[in-house]
């Protein structure tokens, strides 16, 4: 049996109230909210967060043989973004990491390939950051987020959703497009796409059901997603499934996260699914892809590390002006401090475990934690007698904190905390996803992988702390 072993959906902490858009510009916006990646997040960091959740939700001891990363908004071209995710997850060197990049369809394509075209355990990570010009439909309807799925055989670990079969259809038509370097997508008038997608979904839907020998009414949950919201809506109503089978596409809270949305919604659905249920995933992206799953008994014991629903609950609104600043749609006055220099590739290479995976060292004699890792112990002065101390999943308590109004930051002010780790050790770290006014000593924090700044087109990734939520 092949299928999904675990899943993780990541929704950033911030929300934009769509009504704020029309209040500012007199047009645009809508109802509900959309998710907003923090100024220090990109598709790579969000992918890391989703992947960490998927791995933490998997049974102990299951390690992926390969990492596939897919996004339509890559942090780098040429350079493999999957390698950064691989480093943050501290996967072994012999675990392959590949980018499946570019088109919105690449995420679902990678998923179907992992299910049908691979025999090893694949950690599939999809991530996207979507937007558009102020007042555009894309600006309000889209969202930012990531979805990760651990795909493999039940010989490696209990599969919570068995893959039953799938089908794809493809046709060339110009419905939505964007050239490299552009931050806005363009789309043809709506009716054209709706007409084109209808028959493509029909054909894939029927073929998939046939391959799985299922009647549509046997499908208890159907996830329909695509950037063409109108087509997705009308098609969802015509699949022959029960009306209540249609999954919430999270469009009123999260927005459409593009190439990440299929995996994000699948993770979301699996988090509340009962065993023995058929789940259909229908994705519209320059063609149609349908995949069918049946939840197994293993899902009753499945304990997601952090649900999508809880992340939707625990969100915080972002003022629209700040949103525009973070997206580069409004140029805000930078702090009057020198911009940071680009980081050194060779230094970062030497310190990969620390920088990307947040691994310190622990003195074998005294047990003292050293962050960053050290060769000479601060206590007892032993030399080269340290064991790696992975701290990315550690939690701690804020011993002291300070708001720095003059330090350089892409979004000042900087909140900094001295964190005492559970189990001993201390480190002063930058905080993120916080409202400075509500912070206090004694608050609990955990670590998150972020982008500190970009200089000379090199992204500087490292870890920050955020409050433990959910």
């Amino acid at each position, binding site marked *: 049996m092949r299928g999904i072993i675990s899943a993780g959906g990541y929704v950033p902490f911030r929300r934009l109230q769509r009504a704020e858009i029309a209040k500012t510009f007199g047009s645009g916006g809508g109802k509900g909210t959309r998710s907003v990646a923090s100024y220090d997040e990109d598709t790579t960091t969000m992918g890391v967060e989703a992947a960490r959740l998927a791995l933490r939700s998997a049974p102990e001891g299951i390690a992926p043989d390969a990492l596939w990363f897919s996004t339509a908004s890559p942090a780098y071209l040429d350079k493999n973004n999957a390698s950064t995710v691989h480093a943050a997850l501290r996967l072994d060197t012999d675990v392959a990491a590949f980018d499946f990049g570019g088109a919105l369809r690449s995420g679902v394509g990678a998923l179907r390939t992992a299910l049908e075209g691979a025999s090893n355990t694949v950690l599939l990570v999809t991530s996207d950051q979507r937007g558009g010009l102020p007042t555009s439909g894309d600006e309000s309807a889209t969202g930012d987020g990531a979805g990760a799925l651990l795909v493999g055989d039940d010989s490696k670990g209990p599969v919570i959703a068995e893959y039953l079969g799938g089908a794809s259809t493809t046709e060339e038509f110009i419905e939505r497009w964007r050239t490299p370097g552009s931050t806005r997508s363009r789309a043809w008038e709506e009716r054209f796409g709706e007409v084109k997608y209808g028959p493509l979904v029909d054909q894939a839907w029927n073929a998939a059901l046939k391959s799985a020998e299922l009647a549509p009414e046997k499908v208890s949950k159907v996830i329909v997603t695509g950037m063409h919201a109108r087509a997705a809506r009308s098609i969802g109503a015509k699949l022959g499934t029960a009306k209540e089978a249609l999954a919430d596409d999270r469009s009123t809270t999260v927005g459409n996260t593009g190439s990440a949305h299929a995996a994000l919604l699948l993770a979301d659905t699996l988090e509340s699914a009962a065993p023995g249920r058929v789940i259909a995933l229908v994705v519209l992206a320059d063609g149609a892809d349908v995949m069918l799953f049946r939840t197994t008994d293993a899902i009753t014991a499945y304990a997601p590390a952090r649900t999508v629903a809880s992340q939707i609950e625990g969100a915080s609104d972002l003022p629209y002006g700040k949103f525009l600043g973070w997206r580069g749609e409004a140029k805000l006055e930078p702090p009057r401090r020198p911009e940071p220099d680009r980081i050194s590739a060779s230094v970062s290479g030497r310190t990969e475990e620390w920088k990307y995976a947040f691994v310190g060292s622990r003195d074998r004699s005294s047990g003292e*934690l050293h962050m960053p890792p050290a060769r000479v112990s601060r206590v007892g002065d032993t030399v080269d007698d340290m064991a790696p101390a992975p701290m990315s999943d550690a939690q701690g308590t804020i011993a002291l904190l*300070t*708001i720095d109004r003059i330090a*350089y930051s892409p979004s000042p002010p*900087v909140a900094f905390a001295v964190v005492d780790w559970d189990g001993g050790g201390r480190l*002063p770290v930058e905080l993120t996803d916080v409202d400075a006014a509500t912070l206090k*000593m004694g608050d609990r924090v955990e670590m998150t992988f972020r982008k500190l700044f970009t200089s000379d087109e090199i992204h500087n*990734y490292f870890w920050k702390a955020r409050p433990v939520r959910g």
Partner: protein
Amino acid sequence: MGSHGIKDRVAIVGMGCTPFGEHWNKGTDDLLIDASEATFASAGIKKEDVDAYWLGTAMSGMSGMALARPLQLHDKPVTHVENFCATASEALRNAAYSVASGAYDVAMAIGVEKVKDSGYQGLVGAAKTPTDGTGRTLTAAAMFAMCSPGYGKKYGLDDDQMREVLARIAQKNHYNGARNPRAQFRKEISMETIVNAPLMAGGLGVYDCSGVADGSAGAIIVRAEDALEYTDKPIYIKALSLVAGNCSGNADPEYDYTTFPEIAATGRDAYAQAGITNPREQLAMAEVHDCFTTAELLIYEDLQFAERGTAWKEVLDGTFELEGALPVNPDGGLKSFGHPVGASGLRMVFEAWLQLRGEAPPERTIAHADRGLALTHNLGGYPGEMVSFVSIVGNELG
């Protein structure tokens, strides 16, 4: 093994100090020339008479040639030293040791910094070592801001009380600086203005932070037995102590930001070298590194001017004011002078030079000059990871 010091083996026989401030019309070379000319004149010597030079600058030049070129020193040894904000003190320390060792008869220590050419407010640093980008980006203000809640929590002071104590320190230093023609800021500042100033980091406002200034200061050092050949009022070096921290404070859960262990260590070492057992009663004055008001508060306790947990009361009682039991920063401190990194340590010694020779103007004369001993303290770095320097100088041998 042991730290023995060089008590009474060398003396300062001349000092010079430029005004500190925004020297838009003077470069590093100009400041060095101005300070060295004043220093040579003070000692009654010429540059040829100096056998060896120690130049302190953290960000305004590299190598000894940064001094040899502007002063046109011919075939002289010039050593460039850097030790964060204790750079000038480090120049003094090494120059003093060179004379004490017998290697040279006359040495000069000079410190300089030209920081106002960066185009940014505050200190921006100079070292551009390639990194992996994981280093802390917090400003010094934010790091020292953590001492306020740390101290308040430990000794039961609420935010308003801490605010008042810190403001009193700022007020005192500005009061003294208003009486010093070399200071950058020569104005008394009211408590109300200090308390209501815009916040920079944490609870620290503008007046809790030292300013940024250009400046230079120098000293001529000779063997103690030769001192009276140069001046009838030499200042003898009683102690020089330096500690470079191992940066463990911010990794130690026991560290509570109410003390600077490096400073306490330099204090103990310096008092032992000088034979001081009760600094509060034996010292006539102290110049300490008031980069932030929180730093000065903790320094009082680390240097044993006040018992642990009581410095805040002493501040409110006026203990460290000009007329108090132990005047601290009678020249106005970094608060009034700004902080040209490579010069501040020698600026502090310059105030000790003036006060112990009875040359400070009457409006800022200290209450107990007759004690004859002065301490200077200079730090570089942050709570938990700093370089600390303490010197003790005196106007009599023995």
